[in-house]
């Protein structure tokens, strides 16, 4: 685990850059993590996905699958990949300050 200083606040992140404590998350931080991962600006559509991932994790304790992300977030699968080309579920989890999704789907 490493401690990274982002936006002058120090947060704990794992080797892949996922926050280890979701409580350390902020919207400002989300924007910085997005930029680190090649997303210059988070649009409303990005935010919809990020917030859905985060809410789902905080209420159920696990991140949604790509299947339910596509069905329930309000953003269809095709668009998810346009918004997060390097993998919607993982990147949205990283930006949303929750651990890396563990499922295979």
């Amino acid at each position: 685990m490493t401690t990274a200083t982002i936006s002058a606040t120090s947060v704990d992140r794992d080797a892949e850059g996922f926050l280890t404590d979701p409580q350390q998350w902020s919207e400002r931080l989300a924007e910085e993590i997005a930029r680190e991962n090649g997303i210059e600006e988070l649009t409303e559509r990005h935010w919809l996905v990020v917030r859905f991932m985060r809410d789902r994790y905080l209420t159920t304790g696990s991140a949604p699958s790509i299947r339910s992300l596509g069905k329930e977030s309000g953003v269809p699968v095709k668009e998810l990949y346009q918004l997060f080309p390097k993998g919607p579920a993982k990147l949205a989890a990283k930006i949303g300050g929750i651990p890396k999704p563990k499922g295979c789907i």
Partner: protein
Amino acid sequence: MTTVLEEPKLEVVEPKTIEKVSIVVSKGSLEGVYPALIMANGARMDGIEADLFFTFFGLDAIRKDRYEKIKVATVGNPGLHMPTMLGALPGFSSLVTRMMTRQMEKIDIPPIPEFIELVADSGVRLYACKASVDMFGLTMEDFVPQVEDIISVGEFYAKAAGSQVIFT
């Protein structure tokens, strides 16, 4: 005269990440099709490019008239730990398929038609093998709309340039 050769220095090569996978689906059973779909979807989820090449009975997974009827092979499948004679009983394959499908739904694995749509929407490209298509007397009309093209083995290899080829 002898000369002492310098020992070559060993270079440490960092393992590279996989950038692309090309998966060949050759079986038309449930347990033949699902692993390929799960691996293709999983690749996309990690930002890895993925192609699916359906050949022989694997074509059933993209045939309009068959892709809703993919079944578990209950005969000659030691993994089921059941007598082969039992597996051959009428309706047994459908029963086992229903049981497995229910289990998969519980862990959020979609049925094959929805899964084909999911992987295609995720950017996986689906191709049918020309030799098999000709052998079974099929055309593009027989396939689901997500199938991009009917291609030869040579074209498959050309598209697979730089990728890891996986045969299932």
